[in-house]
């Protein structure tokens, strides 16, 4: 993850159980402009598969997905 990445929206998804982290990212994707970035922090490990699968099947992009301690941090880019 690059420190310089401009984040347009922060989503705190800690404590939410799957598939809710994916649902919340999807619900918020139109709240950033095309090319914009959502930074989402989840704690359910299922999100590590769910959010990338959602991004792939909707034509968006997971720029990075990192495990940081007990948290999973995603940078999701709105592509269209």
């Amino acid at each position, binding site marked *: 993850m690059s420190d310089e990445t401009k984040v347009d929206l922060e989503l705190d998804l800690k404590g939410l159980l799957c*598939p*809710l982290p*994916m649902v919340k990212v999807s619900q918020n994707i139109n709240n950033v402009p095309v090319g914009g970035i959502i930074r989402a922090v989840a704690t359910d*490990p299922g999100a590590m*598969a*769910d959010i990338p*699968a959602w991004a*792939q*099947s909707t034509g968006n992009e997971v720029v990075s997905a990192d495990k940081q301690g007990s948290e999973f941090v995603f940078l999701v880019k709105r592509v269209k």
Partner: protein
Amino acid sequence: MEKVQLETLTGVIDKKMNRQLKQYIDICARCAICKDACHQYVGTGDFKYLPARRAELIRQIYKRYFDKAGRFMPALYEAREPDDNLLDELYDSTYACTGCRRCMYYCPFSIDTAWILSVAKAILIAAGRGNEMLGQLADAAIFKGDNAAMFEGVMLSGFDDISEEVRAITGDPEHRVHVNKEGADVLYVALAGAHSIRPAAVIFEEAGENWTISMFEAANYGFFYGDTEKARLITKRYIDEAKRLGVKEIVVPECGHAYRVAEFFYEAWSKEPMPFKVTHILEKVDDYIKSGRITVDKGLIEGKVTYHDPCQLGRNGGKFEQPRDIVKAVTDNFVDLTPNRAEQWCCGGGGGIVAMEEFKDVRLKSGAKKVEQLKASGASVLACPCENCRLQIEELNEVHELGMEIWQVIDLVVAAMPLPGNQKGAEATE
């Protein structure tokens, strides 16, 4: 509406309306008994949520194209074209329906409004008006199935972390989450979240079960979306895994619709007999307790405990007693909700509605009956074996300041097992 689109819609109706459904729309006496059975109508007073009204919209479209009188004199016979107004109302009344089938239970003719609304979903999808969120969730699940290798690394690492937590609870260094184990007797099809795997793994390992998990979760948003082909593909992911691993039994988690999909729908969708025994995890756990394969202590759970029958497991799945027996095995302080079992009120969170933000207001209002029941029970702990129900009831708990603890049943069981890491385990699975 354009001719081509109209032809598509009438084609869908023609294909979906079988004899039983035609009979339903013919025999409705409009007695409105169902209105008092539907938590959404009761909670909102909104006419569009009255069960018979929801079905009426389908009847009107059907009459317009498939009934002689309706075709020639639509105004006289309440036949309508599926214009934007009708489709807007159909969308609201269809996707808001939680599929609880409480209206059917009270209808003198047992009219299955939720089934009629499966035709409505097919019409809406054909008109390009299917619910976007449910469609996306279904597509993501199918994508995971088609690209399993892409997710294997992260999932295995997640299972490793859960294995460590399991060992911390049971104190047995051999215990773990078994993944893709060929020759296992049982395939546990969990939900995507760790909360559904950890307590189940503790119980399976303590019971000495020969079990495994696979990469695919049980939740099926294709079913909620209303596309049986998507729903079939999502289920097929774990059916194929079960065949490959050679298991004898599929165990579904604490998820209402997942049980119904595996037990009742997959055979019809796939047109092949289900090659495995399908069991709900609470049937297994009940059996483990009664046969002495796991031990639970009464007294470790504090407070009065009650139980909510998820509609898909209870009224629509026939599983009323095993979950109650489990709860009664872990506490002497059990109180049932009133009414209960087949008459249980829907909590308002089923049918995928918790994922559809546009229905939040009606969803929360429609929980009024559940809130009433919970308050009247005087319980401080609720056991509830369905993810969607728990999400809804947790929100009701907060909004109405009920101060209750909402638990998965398997979490209650783990907390009542005399295990070295029990306290830690109970906290970890909350």
